[in-house]
């Protein structure tokens, strides 16, 4: 298939791997963070890390939207789902994320009307089909997903769908990256930037990383050769003493992003002063809420929610995993008490989560053998 097969070509992959080998300095250890959960998934699905020299380490960042949702937000969603007459809609993996008293899936088993949807538009469709019920959409995701929620809210408002509302847990990518870079226990040499977030926001918002922190960032696509090429570009910058934002995924990502999408986001959402991230704590201006013009569709105003901060389970080390301080298999409960079937931490819930990616694609057994 054009534009797919050539990005999965094994012989080309070996050639790029040889180029990577030629760019690394012996004795130097390189840590490169892939920001996006989609990259983490591809890296383990295709064994990209097996093609890297031992001194090039990939660290998994906070780019899985499920993984960063704190327990308190799940509790808020469950509280709304339990209200009489409510149809609560969310993406599939969100249903299994544990709150302090269970998950949305467990709330569904206990009688709440919780339904999985593939898009906010599906949720709006359910609202139109059930005018006598309140339909709430649990919005999660970074700037790639936020336009979909924004357009749905615009459509709901324009069409006067009064029984539709949204509990907004959308987040933005730049503030957590800045928080990570400020973290004293993290040393990184460069970043593989999120390709489809950049389709919306562009590559320009990442310029603070080389400018303020002296690290290269390369926006990358999701095929194995995209990721390998982005590593080459990062290593080449390091070797040449350059620190820049580069766009490996130029076939899709405009440097300035999708201006129409940014305009819609600006109309429908506004930044929260603070938003809690699992494992990372509260980060200023990192979460979105509905703007005043769309307040009538804000489920947090329409329904009573606990809004309580709930501490992560003590055994769970998702925070350290999300910051790249430890590898998933180094967590005390990885693969034992915490598995994709019975997740304790959110990194094990979504297939884009670092722990689930390790577990699902055989890294669990391999790493344990090394130990």
């Amino acid at each position, binding site marked *: 298939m054009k534009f797919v097969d050539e990005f999965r070509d094994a012989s080309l992959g070996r050639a790029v791997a040889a180029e990577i080998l030629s760019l690394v300095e012996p004795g130097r250890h390189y840590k490169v963070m892939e920001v996006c959960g989609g990259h983490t998934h591809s890296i383990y699905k295709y064994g990209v890390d097996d093609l890297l020299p031992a001194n090039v380490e990939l660290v998994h960042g906070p780019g899985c939207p499920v993984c960063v949702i704190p327990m308190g937000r799940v509790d808020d969603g469950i509280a709304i789902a339990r209200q009489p007459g409510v149809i609560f809609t969310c993406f599939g993996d969100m249903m299994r994320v544990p709150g302090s008293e269970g998950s949305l899936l467990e709330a569904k088993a206990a009688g709440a009307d919780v339904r999985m949807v593939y*898009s906010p538009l599906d949720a709006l469709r359910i609202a139109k089909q059930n005018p006598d019920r309140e339909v709430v959409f649990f919005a999660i995701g970074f700037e790639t997903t936020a336009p979909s929620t924004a357009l749905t809210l615009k459509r709901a408002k324009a069409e006067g769908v009064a029984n539709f509302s949204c509990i907004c847990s959308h987040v933005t990518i730049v503030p957590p990256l800045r928080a990570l870079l400020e973290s004293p226990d993290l040393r990184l040499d460069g970043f593989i930037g999120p390709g489809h977030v950049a389709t919306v926001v562009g590559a320009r918002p990442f310029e603070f990383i080389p400018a303020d922190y002296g690290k290269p960032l390369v926006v990358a696509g999701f095929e194995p050769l995209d990721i390998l090429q982005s590593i080459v570009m990062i290593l080449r910058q390091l070797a040449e003493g350059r620190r820049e934002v580069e766009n490996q995924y130029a076939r899709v990502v405009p440097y300035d992003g*999708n201006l129409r999408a940014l305009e819609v986001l600006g109309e429908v959402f506004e930044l929260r002063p603070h938003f809690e991230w699992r494992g990372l704590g509260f980060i200023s201006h990192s979460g979105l809420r509905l703007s005043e013009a769309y307040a009538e569709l804000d489920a947090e105003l329409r329904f009573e929610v606990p809004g309580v901060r709930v501490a992560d389970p003590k055994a769970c080390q998702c925070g350290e995993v999300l910051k790249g301080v430890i590898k998933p298999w180094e967590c005390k409960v990885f693969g034992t008490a915490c598995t994709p079937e019975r997740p304790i931490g959110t990194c094990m819930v979504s297939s884009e989560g670092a722990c689930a990616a390790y577990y*699902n694609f055989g890294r669990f057994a391999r790493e344990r053998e090394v130990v």
Partner: protein
Amino acid sequence: MTPSPAPSYACTGEHCITCSDEGVPMIVLGAARGGLALCADQEGRTHTVETTLLEAAPVGGRVLVHADVAIAALPGELGR
């Protein structure tokens, strides 16, 4: 490069629906009406897709879709 098989309980698609960075390439089958166009993915499944974020979504054109919204026009043939 061959992908590793995913276990039965794992997401079996290219990406989980909740992935913030999912992008599904599709081809536009029908002209947009009210901002919605009929599109098909690589497996031939049809979807109603919001296309208002694009300058144009002509029939036969390729678009990158996330959660039923086209976020970018794709050049050339269908691909990620």
